[in-house]
């Protein structure tokens, strides 16, 4: 599950990567991470950081997870921790799986559109 464990250092996030952009893609990214296995908030935040999205504060992370759960795209349950308060693990639901497939298609098309537009400007 933790494919990043062996990596030496996470890639630094681009310094100018807009917080708004990250906010826009946070929910699909969370779906994708949870699709690889059940995970809890802190671990998801670490994996986002390791993937290069920079530190995602808890203040953005948990409202996003709450929205996903409210929409039925993930479910959650608590597992006892060792001594600590336990952790809430999120799991992709069937609806979440369908949403992720849609998101991937929509993102590819959206990203291609934006990239095309930006390049057009650069060569004008």
């Amino acid at each position, binding site marked *: 599950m933790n494919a990043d464990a062996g990596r030496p250092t996470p890639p630094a996030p681009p310094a100018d990567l807009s917080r708004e952009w990250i906010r826009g893609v946070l929910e699909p990214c969370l779906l994708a991470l949870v699709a690889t296995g059940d995970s809890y908030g802190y671990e998801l935040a670490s994996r986002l950081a390791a993937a290069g999205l920079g530190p995602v504060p*808890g*203040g953005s992370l948990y409202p*996003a997870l709450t929205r996903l759960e*409210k929409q039925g795209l993930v479910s959650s349950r608590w597992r006892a921790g060792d001594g600590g308060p336990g952790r*809430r693990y999120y799991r992709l639901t069937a609806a979440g799986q369908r949403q992720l497939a849609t998101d991937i298609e929509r993102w590819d098309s959206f990203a291609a559109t934006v990239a095309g537009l930006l390049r057009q400007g650069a060569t004008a």
Partner: protein
Amino acid sequence: MNDADWLAALDHELALRGMTGSDRAEAVLEAEAHLADSEPGAVARELFGPPDRYADDLAQASGAPGRRRPPDGTTGAWLLQADRVTRSYRGRPALSPTSLTVAPGQVVALVGPNGAGKSTLLRLLAGLEPPDGGTVSRRAATGWVPQSGGLDPFLRPVEHVELFGVARGLSRADARRQGERLARHLGWELTGAPVVGRLSGGTAQKLRMVLALVGTPRLILADEPYQGLDTDSTRRFWELLWSVCEDGAGAVVSSHDPEVLRRADTVLELQPAVEPAGAQGVGR
């Protein structure tokens, strides 16, 4: 604010936003678990932001009722209207002509330098004194939080609560119950408190707040109500005020607290009143 305080504040803020039972407990536990996993030295306030804003985001995400509805300015309903009111004391103008309307759910914050007439305007709005010019109309029972006074030193707080509650149509038992609940929101136990003359200044101020809110008047007027209070009690008072305005009350408060100004629907800035030019004989 340490993490334990932050978590307690989060719990309180979520409750104010109508998040109940296990949803609320789990949201707090999850933040606590996140902190336990984080690097040593990580601070809740930096990871999650101020508890009230985090609670806003979580409550919105979970579909809880939430705290603020935009005030209903469309129906023409109003609770209080002041039309070009003025006031002078011993010939010196204390308030320039000022107009304002308060709709259900609306919070108006009064700002301005000392001497601009904030307290004067509030006393006129509360009907404690008449304006020299202009008119004040109220359509709602009014709760008033003065900076001082308004209490009888020989009565106990619970007796004050009964008097005010009964005047607003509650039974004594209901008044007492409501008063106890309000006091607890402010971090204070009403029952058993000694006569007012023996209360500290801060506790007396909490009593004024409780008295303004008991019987759920639809209009709240508060004149820098946080004097003599610690920051936690002040914050609790504002949360109470926001929640009654969420339920449709209107409020006019004088305050310089940036958080209050950010959350108020309207900020009304008063300028010191100037004497009419003719009064000093320098007119044309």
